[in-house]
């Protein structure tokens, strides 16, 4: 097995899925973001976004806080320390791979 292939296989598959990668990248760039921003930025439907957030929460990568703003429910998400480390590691590996592929 070549080193490049090993590197691809070793990427975190939970983060590698495009929608979850986008969510993790957004949350990595801020302290927290709410559901509306995540939906606008990723272009996902409410149900789809909700399901990806649940998977990331189950893995311990994100923390979801629910509250109310006025009469409306307000959900905010943020990366946990574990999630921040996992994304930083994933991103470094991926960038390294991309640079090797692009030459």
């Amino acid at each position, binding site marked *: 097995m070549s080193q490049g292939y090993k590197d691809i296989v070793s990427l975190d598959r939970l983060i590698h899925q495009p929608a979850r990668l986008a969510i993790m990248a*957004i949350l990595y760039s*801020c302290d927290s973001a*709410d*559901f*509306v921003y*995540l939906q*606008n930025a990723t272009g996902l439907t409410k149900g789809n976004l909700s399901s990806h*957030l*649940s998977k990331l929460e189950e893995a311990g990568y994100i923390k979801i806080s629910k509250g109310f703003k006025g009469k*409306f429910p307000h959900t905010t998400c943020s990366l946990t320390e574990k999630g921040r480390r996992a994304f930083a590691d994933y991103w470094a590996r991926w960038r390294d791979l991309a640079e090797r592929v692009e030459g």
Partner: protein
Amino acid sequence: MSERREIEELMRRTRRYWYEDGLWEIAVGGFFLLLALLWYAQARTPQGSPLWAIYAFAPILLIVLVYTLGMRLIERVRSRHVWPRTGYVKPSRRAYWPLSRVIGLVVAALIALGFVAPSIAGGKWLPALWGLGFALVLAVGARFLGLRRWYALGAWALLTGLGAFLLPFPWLVSGALFWLALGLGWLACGIHALRRYRRSLARSPRGGNANEPGV
């Protein structure tokens, strides 16, 4: 690997979200205009009078006031008109750290120069140096956040600094003119950004968080 670029742009977009509506530039532009007024008033006051000393230290008070009241006002406007439509992002100090370091260094250098300015060649060169400082910070910020309009603001700062340096006035008057031109530039930039942002808001539905599913 265009996906990598898309993700990088998504990260930049999140970092610049705080600045996208132009309100921050409008607030800073207003601050520069007040600073211009203070400098002009100081230039018209005889040196050594108690009022001169008050004018000299007033900018510090102004910074604190603008930071606390201005930021609170911006948050109020955003929470009513912006966040319900496009969402809320709490900026991360960690993400801004590379930019903050550059800004901190340049601001510290400018403040230090402000104290020694009058003793070196009458301080005439100070606005040119400020212009250069602003241009540097704005160029780094524009690159870091992907905000292209800050390149134009940086070029404007460089030009106004050079213009104020070449004017045949005492340094306090040149300084006041520099802050005036800079403030007007920031205001114009902020208003332009706000108008564009309002047009984009019109395309976003209001109260998007009303029907959040259970996550």
